């Protein structure tokens, strides 16, 4: 293979020295050094915003560093754009796919190639690569029909086709099932061991870094805080280095996706929180026989769902994604009307689908996709914090600038929202801080019911810990919490009661004590418990 053999193994494949990159006042990378050797998998661990992605973008030419030098195979290089990086044998598999759904697998692989399209050649090549690395895939399949795991394979094949000797994987497992992740890592091993390539695995998940790498670099706030061989690392010390303080064992476990689920479930009641919580007898929220049909074809997105929520309890909604959870969240966000059934809050029927009706009735929502209905990116932090109830800082319909700033400042402090001030545009905030804006706003409205849909998705350890604590505290404060999540660990950890959704129906209900991975898994798969 070109580019992989022949080089002196003692010369690092990549040597980054003193890389510094500033975005405005924020230092994304601060004097970062990184050395990659052939034949090794190097893990880069860090929270969201630690500078991992920026560092990788420097390496593949998407970002030009302000300072620092880059040596590739001992030669100093300046990488101006991804094409230059590709010419140097650097390839990256991005966290977000850039595939064309309408095209087939081989067409996607051929995209971006210059010159005449050699369709049979590309097909052969795809088949060869997929065989060589055990990335089983049909070259003729339409990408739009593939699962996330298979799409990622297409991305990997796209990358391997250029035969890079330095391979970067950016958060590769964020969209994968555990089995798919497992498969990915064995491929990775193969690529490294058999062909002497250098691989970088960027991740914020402890277990996969521990599991799949040879060496680990830990970044925090743009700096490298630690570097060690994986054999010398354990989850606790890595977590401490990554967050910069002790994190609680429970949220750590949830965040890092450690797999001792049964144990996690056992910890729940011991924590004492459940005992403190007083769950009332009267339901606050009653969802009664709710059916919602899709716009076209009339498929049932929600099919005769009934669910009661009482003050002080956390009810988890488990299920494979795409089984009606999103519609349930939308329903409780006044975004879709019902076809039949009713939603009752505190004994009064809510006009579903009427603007703001759910919020007015006392239902706060942390939506699954905050950019969809949770925040307005082009408005300020203060405006986002006051979206639902601007009247409380207004007199005669005019918003009082002083009160707006004061109210926003108060929430920014209480929820520790990282931003340059109430007037910062929301898009300038990191994902975790945007999520805090949503949380702050929804809790400030003093809701009777809080719907949290995938509340920790894409967040880092610290933010997950914060979010879980907040949700628990919210329940203790007497709010009924509906937790919609595809993370079973999260559901098992937080919920007093768990319902499982499949194909728009509730297929089972379990108490916290009866629930474990196996029963949930069976129900999620559509089998009766």
């Amino acid at each position: 293979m070109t580019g992989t053999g022949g080089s002196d193994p003692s010369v690092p494949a990549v040597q980054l020295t003193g890389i510094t990159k500033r975005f405005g006042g924020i230092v994304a990378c601060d004097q970062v050094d990184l050395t990659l050797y052939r034949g090794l998998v190097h893990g880069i661990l860090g929270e969201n915003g630690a500078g991992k992605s920026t560092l990788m973008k420097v390496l593949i030419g998407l970002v030009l560093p302000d300072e620092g030098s880059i040596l590739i195979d001992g030669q100093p290089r300046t990488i101006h754009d991804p094409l230059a990086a590709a010419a140097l044998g650097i390839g990256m598999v991005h966290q977000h796919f850039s595939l064309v759904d309408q095209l087939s697998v081989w067409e996607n692989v051929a995209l971006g190639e210059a010159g005449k399209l050699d369709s049979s050649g590309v097909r052969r090549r795809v088949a060869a690569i997929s065989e060589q690395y055990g990335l089983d895939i049909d070259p003729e399949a339409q990408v739009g029909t593939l699962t996330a795991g298979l799409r990622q394979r297409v991305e990997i094949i796209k990358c391997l086709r250029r035969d890079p000797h330095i391979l970067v994987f950016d958060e590769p497992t964020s969209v994968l099932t555990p089995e798919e992740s497992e498969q990915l890592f064995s491929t990775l091993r193969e690529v490294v061991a058999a062909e002497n390539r250098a691989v970088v695995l960027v991740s914020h998940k402890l277990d996969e870094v521990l599991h799949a790498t040879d060496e680990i670099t830990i970044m925090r706030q743009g700096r490298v805080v630690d570097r060690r061989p994986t054999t010398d690392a354990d989850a606790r010390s890595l977590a401490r280095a990554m967050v910069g303080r002790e994190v609680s064992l429970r949220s750590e476990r949830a965040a890092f996706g450690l797999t001792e689920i049964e144990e996690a479930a056992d910890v729940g009641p011991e924590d004492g929180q459940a005992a403190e919580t007083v769950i009332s007898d009267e339901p606050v929220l009653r969802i009664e026989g709710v059916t919602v049909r899709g716009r076209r074809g009339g498929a049932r997105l929600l099919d005769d769902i009934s669910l009661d929520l009482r003050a002080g309890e956390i009810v988890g909604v488990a299920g494979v994604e795409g089984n009606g959870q999103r519609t349930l969240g939308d329903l409780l966000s006044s975004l879709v009307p019902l076809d039949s059934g009713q939603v009752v809050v505190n004994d009064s029927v809510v006009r579903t689908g009427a603007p703001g009706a759910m919020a007015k009735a006392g239902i706060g929502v942390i939506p699954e996709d905050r950019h969809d209905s949770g925040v307005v990116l082009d408005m300020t932090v203060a405006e986002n914090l006051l979206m639902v109830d601007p009247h409380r800082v207004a007199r005669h319909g005019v918003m009082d600038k002083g009160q707006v700033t004061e109210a926003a400042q108060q929430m920014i402090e209480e929820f520790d929202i990282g931003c340059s001030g109430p007037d910062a545009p929301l898009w300038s905030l990191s994902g975790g801080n945007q999520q805090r804006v949503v949380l702050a706003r929804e809790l400030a409205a003093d809701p009777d019911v809080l719907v949290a849909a995938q509340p920790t998705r894409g967040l880092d350890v610290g933010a997950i810990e914060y979010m879980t604590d907040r949700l628990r505290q919210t329940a203790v404060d007497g709010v009924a919490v509906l937790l919609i999540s595809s993370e079973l660990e999260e559901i098992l950890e937080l919920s007093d009661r768990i319902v499982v959704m499949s194909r728009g129906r509730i297929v089972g209900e379990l108490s916290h004590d009866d629930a474990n991975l196996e029963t949930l898994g069976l129900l999620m798969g559509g089998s009766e418990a």
Partner: protein
Amino acid sequence: MTRGARAAEWVVLYALSIVVALAISSVIVKATGGDWWPVVEALVDGSIKAPGRWGETLGIAAPLLLVALGTVISAKAGLINIGQEGQLLMGAAFAVFFSFRIGGPGPLNVVLLLLFGALGGAVWASVAGLLRFWRGVPEVLSTLLLVFVAVQAVGYGLKWQWLLLADEASRGNRNLVSEQLAKDNRIPRPDIFGNEFPITVYVALALALAVAYVLARTVWGFRLRMLGHNPRAAQRSGVSSTVYGATALAIGGAFAGLAGAAMFAGGGFSFGNYRLVPGFSDFIGWTGLLVALMARERALPAVVAAFVFAMLRTGAGFVNSTGVESRITDVVQGLLVLALLVPPAVVFLRDRRRARAAATERV
């Protein structure tokens, strides 16, 4: 970027694009046998320098500004209203109908006819609003097409005496025109330093301030902007897209209608000389749309933009007297309009790219 740097950037961008437009214009003028310096002089003379001209320019800037303000409001709600020309014409027609068929003499009538004009524009825009929120017809299409319906409808009205047409004694040659507005029903045009312009200029300025204030500071404006930026978040927060959207469209139309009424009752020789005539709207609606575009859909910058576009119009009038062929002066005017619209487009595209880059850089 600091405020100063941003302002400097705007100045440079505008200077650059205007210089380029003038350079191309001069080449064209030269190539067709004209002389380009008199053209520039005529532009300046006609818009501000010659006696009485800046008053004339202000008189044209006022309706442009009104139209632009309406456009700003509907744009904030995320709606693209491009039918101001028709809404303006309808406003003028409503004002005419009120003046000669309902109202009486006196200054109160002036106020009422203006309000009637606003009503006319609002009604016309609301047709599009109704189609949009009842039947889902895109407002871009309906507002645009309603312009042509408005032209025909007003033309029809001018055929009938019980609607808009003047009686035979006050029109010659069976012209299709309305009666002329009586002197005591006209908007006053006081003379200041030899410049004469209707007091609706002040009204338009006050309305610009009011619109800026309402959008920035009131709950209504806040929720309207929310709707424009993210309709789903707005829906969840209790903003009805139907109520707010239809209202924004109606208000947008009302502003255009008000402009039409003001042109009729205070436009003097610039606009039909106190009569409604075919072609009365004279592209003020379309140009007002461009004003809003140049102001990047903000109320206060629209004040400046309206004046600049008015200058272009009054200046072009003088260019015709330089002996350069009128088609060439049309080209020159078109180039200058483009020059005014390029900088906002450049900045818009760049800001969006930066925002995107910033959004993707944060993981």
